[in-house]
Every structure is written in C-alpha cells, then in structure tokens.
C-alpha cells in the first residue's frame, strides 16, 4: 500500500509539467473534439469497452504512465496480477480523451471498465482495492487475484 503512495507521489512530482502540457493541449482542442464526438465515436467506444474484460483509459501506457492517478490504477492491477488488460492512452487521441468522458459521463481520466461496465476512476478503484471489493469483482470476471495466492502462502 505504501509503495503505491510513494510511487504515485513520485509520479505526481515528476509529472506535474506533464499535467500542464496535456491540459493546455486538451483545452485548445476541446471545442473541435466535441464537434468530432459524433455518434460514430461513441459507438466505437461502446465496442472498445466490451472487447476486453478489463479496459483502462489512462494517460500514458502501463509501461510508462504519465499521471499519478493513472499510475495508481496500473500499480493496483499489477498487485492483483492482472496484466492482460486493454489500456488506451488518451494523450495519443483527443477524440478518445473527450469521447470517453462523454461516454461514461465522468469528468476525469483514468477510467476503468469491467465487462463493459464503468467501474470508476482512481479514487474508487483504490477504495475497492483497500476494502477487498476488487478481489471479489475480479472473481466475477473469472480472474483470480494474485493477492489470494499471497494470502494462502502467508497462512
């Protein structure tokens, strides 16, 4: 748990200038992006979130997150041994960046989807991890959390 906080804090400190650049970029294009956010884009997202069991819209990639909150989600998934998930870098595509916010009616990135259903952002994901709910939700997806095996070993 502490390691998530330290690594996230590190990412936030290092990544603060990334915040600014991405934010300015987003605002310049947001008007245009909203026009482009057609039905087709929404339909595309509807398909994307159903294609894989676990789908994450984030800033950066799992190998190189560009935001502390996105990094936190990646780290939590790693702790549970989930490495077979679809990750979409919103910084690469302004259509997706704006479109997904409209699609899930959620204002921020990262966004996590389980079986095509919106789960929440970093806050919710972190709380689910801390409460143990995440292990249960993964189980419903047919994914066995690595933490269950760790528990077994320590007993």
């Amino acid at each position, binding site marked *: 748990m502490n390691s998530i906080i330290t690594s996230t804090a590190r990412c*936030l400190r290092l990544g*603060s200038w990334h*915040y*600014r650049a991405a*934010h300015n970029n987003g605002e310049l294009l947001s008007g245009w992006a909203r026009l482009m956010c057609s039905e087709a884009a929404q339909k595309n997202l509807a398909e994307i979130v159903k294609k894989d069991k676990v789908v994450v819209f984030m800033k950066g990639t799992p190998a190189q997150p560009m935001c502390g*909150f996105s990094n936190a989600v990646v780290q939590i998934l790693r702790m549970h041994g989930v490495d077979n998930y679809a990750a979409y870098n919103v910084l690469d595509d302004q259509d997706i960046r704006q479109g997904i916010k409209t699609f899930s*009616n*959620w*204002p*921020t990135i990262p966004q996590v989807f389980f079986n095509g259903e*919106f*789960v*929440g*952002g*970093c*806050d*919710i994901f972190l*709380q*689910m991890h801390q409460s143990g709910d995440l292990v249960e939700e993964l189980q419903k997806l047919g994914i066995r959390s690595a933490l269950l095996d760790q528990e077994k070993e320590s007993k």
Partner: protein
Amino acid sequence: MSITPDLIREKLIAGIAAIHVDVEDTSPNRCAASFKVLVVSPQFEGKPLLQRHRMVNNCLAEELKEIHAFEQKTLTPEQWEKLKAQ
C-alpha cells in the same frame, strides 16, 4: 469566476446537504486547477461508491469543466464518525 475551495464547499452543502466538507487545493504550480475533497452527507446512505461520486460530479458539473484533476472521498455521517474515532 475562479474556482475556490469555498465555492466548492458551498455548492456541496447546498447541492447534496453535505454536513462536512474538506477541500484541499492540490493544483501543482497553481497552473492547473486541481482539488481533493472529503464530503460527508447523509444522502450517501445506502448508495454504492460510484453513485456517490456521480452525485458529487453532478453537483459540481460546471466547475469540473474547468478543473483538471479531482479526487474525492465520500462518507456517510456514520462513516465519518468512525474515521474520526480512529
């Protein structure tokens, strides 16, 4: 109109009957508006996390258009009391 912690607090009290609101301005370099809020409201009772967060989002819909990063913790009065007791 600039978004201030007080504005956020007032909106949450008026919008979802929050009995306690902590607002932390986490804007790095004060260039990108970022906030972290703790909201305590009886209206959260019986509602799952996602629903609670959506209530807060709806309450601050206008502000969130300008805010870059937003963290929130949503508690019922009972959960708040338990947390304080720790």
